């Protein structure tokens, strides 16, 4: 049911000083696929996310989007290419309103000379932000309300809604169900399914393994900067997944399929 390979990294590595954060990691993401990315703390998940989102440049390896090699020099370039990233806990500016956050970095300006000076079409953005979030399946009381006045669940919903509304190819979600109650987490998983059916490639990073097993099509396990397992979700049980993450279950090094 998955489409073509939409996003791919080959053999990427990244070191911070003497610490090897990523050691020759390769993965393929297909259109309409939800890929789970799991691993213990320090396994290299965050680093891989930063490489995929254009925030960090890898020391070695290649990145392909739709088969074309890319070299992101800023998050802006990856965003413009259709890759949205939701960072863990820090994706929104709390003092800005919902619509300001939804449009941050992509503001609509008023027409005419004032627009040339950077004056904002705030009303239009408020209306559109509200519609965008609703389309994704997220109900937010008011898009003119500041994010600091929202509950944790609502904030997360806005962050995910923004990512899904803007994403054209790939959406990377780093711990999107963190700190959420069961009902809100359920809503998030629902939004992920919606993104998948839109034909987006979704990378889902989480410590909450039941969520990973529930929502993903395939799971990639990182350990100490290396990808130690890459298999369809159906092949994992809760126990085998934990065992693979911690290393108590031996894995065979994959030689790129």
């Amino acid at each position: 049911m998955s489409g073509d390979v939409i996003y791919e990294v080959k053999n990427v590595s990244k070191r911070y000083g003497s610490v090897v954060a990523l050691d020759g990691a390769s993965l393929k993401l297909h259109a309409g696929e939800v890929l789970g990315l799991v691993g213990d703390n320090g396994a290299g998940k965050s680093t891989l996310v930063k490489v995929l989102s254009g925030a960090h440049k890898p020391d070695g390896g290649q990145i392909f989007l739709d088969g074309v090699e890319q070299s992101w020099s800023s998050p802006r370039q990856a965003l413009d290419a259709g890759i949205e990233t939701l960072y863990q806990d820090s994706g929104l500016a709390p003092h800005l309103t919902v619509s300001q956050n939804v449009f941050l970095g992509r503001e609509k300006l008023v027409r005419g000379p004032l627009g040339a000076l950077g004056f904002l079409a705030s009303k239009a953005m408020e209306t559109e932000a509200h519609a965008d979030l609703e389309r994704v399946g997220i109900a937010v009381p008011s898009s003119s309300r500041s994010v600091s006045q929202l509950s944790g669940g609502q904030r997360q919903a806005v962050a995910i809604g923004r990512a899904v509304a803007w994403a054209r190819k790939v959406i990377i979600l780093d711990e999107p169900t963190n700190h959420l109650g069961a009902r809100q987490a359920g809503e998030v998983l629902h939004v992920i399914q919606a993104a998948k059916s839109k034909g987006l490639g979704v990378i889902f990073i989480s410590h909450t393994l039941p969520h990973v097993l529930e929502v993903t099509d395939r799971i990639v396990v990182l350990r100490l900067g290396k990808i130690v397992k890459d298999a369809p979700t159906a092949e994992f049980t809760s126990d085998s997944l934990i065992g693979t993450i911690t290393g108590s279950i031996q894995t065979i090094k994959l030689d790129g399929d």
Partner: protein
Amino acid sequence: MTDSHLAQSARSARLQQLTQLATNQSTILVGVMILLTIVFSSLEPKFLSALTANNILTDWGSVALIAVGQTFVIISGGIDLSVGATIGLSGVVSAWTMANVLGVDQTIKGGEASGALLIGTLVSVAVGVLVGLTNAFLINRFKIVPFIATLSTMGAALGFSVIISKGAPIGSASNFALISAIDPKVNPFSWAVIVVIIVVVIVGLFLHKSRFGLYTYAIGSNSFAARAAGINVERHLTKVYVLSGALAGLAGMYVYLRLGAGSPSSGTGRELDAIAAVVIGGASLMGGVGRMLGTVLGALILFTVQSGLIMIGVAPDWKKVVVAVLIAAAVAVQTLQSKNRRTA
């Protein structure tokens, strides 16, 4: 979210709007202004006069300019301590240029005077821009925290202004013709104050209505999120510190016009007045919060208190104590407000 949830949150939103208006920083500040005016004018009837208003507004002008720049800096999560020293340096360089390069005699009037005024202003603003660029360079390139970066440029600016002026004011007020720009006899608003008000309104619109202002809030609120949204944080901060420097340069010209001389110490300590105005105006030193109207009223309250205390015969030394109380009260109100918001 269900319909009853939505209805409930709509009701609480309306309630919140009402409480917001009542606890709104600008509403409170206008109230404080009115209260101060009533108290001072009942103790000293002469307080309620065009002359007093002009004195207050003339004092307000120079600090309003740097406080407006400081508002951007503080909202972005930084601080600019160099603006006071920049007033001195830009005034000195401008006075030196007018006297030694243009050969302007201080008694000039009319058309010739406006030419000299224009060039002097450009030089003054250019000096401010240079200080702002230096601040941004130190902050972006070497990751020096704004407090230390601007503390060092403050010292350097003060040093240069003493070196250039050889420690003495350039020019003197006694035969200064340009001073008519700031003459109190016109009405409460001298020309210089009108220029300041125009600048404040324009810059205020940019803060609240433009992308430039929005990015300033976004960076101060969460610089990580701003960066992730594709904003070039370093480039934006450069613009913010250059704006602060340029306005300090303009304030330098303003103070030059008032004193009739470029004096190295003419802006000393003014950065603290500006920061006080911004904080009284409701901004948070943590960044992400602040309003231009708050800053403007904050600065006005500072100088109303100062003039009022002198007019009712309180020793000027008390001014600092009163300002300290105002700052503490402003921050206390702010803390209570944010606590209310969190429990709402």
